[in-house]
């Protein structure tokens, strides 16, 4: 009887584990194995280099670390600007206002649009030569001509501009999750606090924030995982790596695979990237556990 019960339990997870083993684990093992070889992806022979690829990535490949730093920068902006925006919008929509559903629909449009359209539309807004130069014209109109830049081609501003547009595209998911979180905080708590004489800021600080911390952590973890892997939008906006200023890890991996035909090296980059992501996620998770217990 007990055996039957345990077998039943395994059957529940069987389809998932089966598909996962075949379609994730087997390719992963191959990628893991290849990271120890130098191979161009075509020749039948592969050259064993042991930890050579990893050594090269960690010690010599300054392009890789620049890409990681850039991705980290974009992620930082996402964690702050994007998520703060999402939170503020969710908070605004949580109040009893009209058009709540209208806004909910609109804010989710950016995540749904293809990166190609987003890239072209934003180039149209920002660029002078192949666009309508709306941003700069607005600045001049406001009497701020000294702030005018070639936002997407100036190395000083390109990465930040890309990060902001990326946040624009991504905040929809955060908005939705935060909104849901806010809507589950019982109104009675706010009413009780109001009766006790708390003003808006105090109830925000003492009720809203603590109850939203777990949601914020969830969003943070998903944001990091998603943003570190971004790359399609960068190609749409700036055509490439802009002499390294807008390079990101996935673009480096693709460059190794296609440009230099170094398949083994690309696999090693992939593994290194995965390890970094795991470490970051692990730190975030432990941090969240501590916070939850508080």
């Amino acid at each position, binding site marked *: 009887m007990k055996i039957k019960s345990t077998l039943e339990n395994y059957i529940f997870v069987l389809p998932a584990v089966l598909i996962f083993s075949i379609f994730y684990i087997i390719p992963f093992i191959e990628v893991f194995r290849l990271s120890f070889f130098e191979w*161009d*992806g*075509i*020749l*039948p022979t592969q050259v064993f280099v042991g930890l050579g690829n990893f050594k090269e990535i960690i010690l*010599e490949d300054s392009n890789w670390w620049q890409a990681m730093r850039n991705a980290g920068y974009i992620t930082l902006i996402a964690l702050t600007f994007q998520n703060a925006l999402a939170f503020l919008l969710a908070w605004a929509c949580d109040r009893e206002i009209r058009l709540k559903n209208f806004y909910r629909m609109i804010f989710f449009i950016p995540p749904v649009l293809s990166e190609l359209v987003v890239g072209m539309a934003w*180039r149209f807004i920002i*660029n*002078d*030569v*192949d666009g309508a130069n709306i941003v700069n014209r607005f600045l001049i109109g406001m009497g701020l001509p000294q702030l005018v830049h*070639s936002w*997407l*081609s100036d*190395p000083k501003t*390109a990465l930040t501009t890309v990060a902001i547009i990326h946040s624009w595209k991504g905040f929809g998911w955060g908005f939705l999750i935060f909104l849901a979180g806010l809507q589950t905080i019982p109104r009675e708590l706010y009413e009780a606090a109001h009766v006790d004489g708390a003003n808006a800021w105090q109830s925000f600080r003492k009720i809203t924030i603590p109850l939203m911390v777990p949601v914020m952590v969830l969003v943070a973890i998903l944001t990091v995982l998603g943003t570190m892997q971004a790359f399609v939008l960068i*190609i749409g*906006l*700036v*055509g*490439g*790596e*802009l*002499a*390294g200023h807008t390079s990101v890890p996935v673009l480096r991996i693709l*460059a190794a695979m*296609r*440009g*230099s*035909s*170094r398949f083994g090296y690309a696999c090693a980059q992939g593994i290194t990237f995965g390890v970094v992501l795991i470490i970051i996620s692990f730190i975030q998770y432990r941090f969240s556990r501590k916070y939850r217990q508080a």
Partner: protein
Amino acid sequence: MLKGHVKILAVICCLAVATLLSGCASKKETRKIITITIWHWMTDREPAFQELAKKYEAKTGVKVNFDLYAPSDAYTQKVRAAAQGQNLPDIFGILGEKRDFASFIKAGHILELTPYMEENNNCWKNSFFPKALEVNEFSQGNSYGVKPGIYGVPIDIMTIQMVYNKDLFKKLGLNPNRPPATFQELLDIGKKLKEANMQGLVSGWGELWMIDCLANNYAFNIMGKDKVLATIRGEVPYTDPDWIKVFALFKDLREAGVLATGIITMVNKTAEQLFANEKAVFAFNGSWCANVYKGMNPNLNYGVMLPPKASENYPMAIWGGAGSSFMVNAHSKNKEEVVKFLQWLSDSEQQAYLSEATNNLPANKNSVTKIPEILAGFARGMDFATHPNIWGVSEFPVVIEAFDKAIQSIILGEKTPEQVAAEVQRIKERELAKRRK
């Protein structure tokens, strides 16, 4: 309510499965007709290819399937995956470097065509422009370790040169029939551009290889082919004064205002659009652009020119040769038929048709019939054409990447030519050291 949706979706699925399965069923019919499958990436030539496939089937009864996979990087990945899975079609193309071409040959995927080319006193071989064939050949003693021979069939030729807008020239007070012949003249035009507030040169310099192309053209002009090849072999450093001169050219272009704003954030399509819509006076692009510009702006009044020479020491070089080539799968089940088809495709009549239909230059010498003036301009450049795939040596990809990025930095005004030369040389030495081990 969700369950209701699920039921409807399940019905749709069943219908779709039925349709798909019926597709599968018809595939299983045995056919005695010979079918040739070709994978290609040329979106603008698809209709022309389909026409030719029909013609060939009517003529010989052999069915030809052209399958288009775009964009070209997705095409490359598909070909590589298929090579791994031993699943290549009868005919396919290899985009990219000679190194990869060599690897495909060494891995046994490509049929050597030399015997067919040399049949009947080199009949097939001689129908091509020699430079078109060179890209598909491996010569005696090549550094790739490939048995010398011809391994691909060119189906068009192309050159990469500069184009200029004749109407905008008139506006600037320049003679539309006298494009700049020297580098200094080009720089001087920069002043006029600034005054008239016009954009100068556009090109897809977000895509590194186009930068490489122009830089290389000037390298040949300044120091000659032999020194460039010697540099690739590691005998001359990138810190050599001649190379610094090459890097400095880009600095000069930037300072003179010749380069369009944001040129290094452009993919080639954006550059093509800008030139076609008369937003830029010059463009650096390949002969395929004739078709693109025609599609975007049939009234564009433009001309072709060689990049203006920076030095009198050596002739200006441009990249040119075979535009697109097809290779035969060595494991194909119908090798003879496949080769016959390629011979037909590269024959003068079909080449002339393709040339007219798609505005590309034919690879067959005898097909140069009535080509538009602009293409004739590109064709004239063939005399100066060279191509990395015929040099017999390849630079390390990391070095090429560093070189191109270095030029991007110069254009951004972030580094000086001397600085970047030193950086590129450092990477070169690191790679050479690795190879020596």
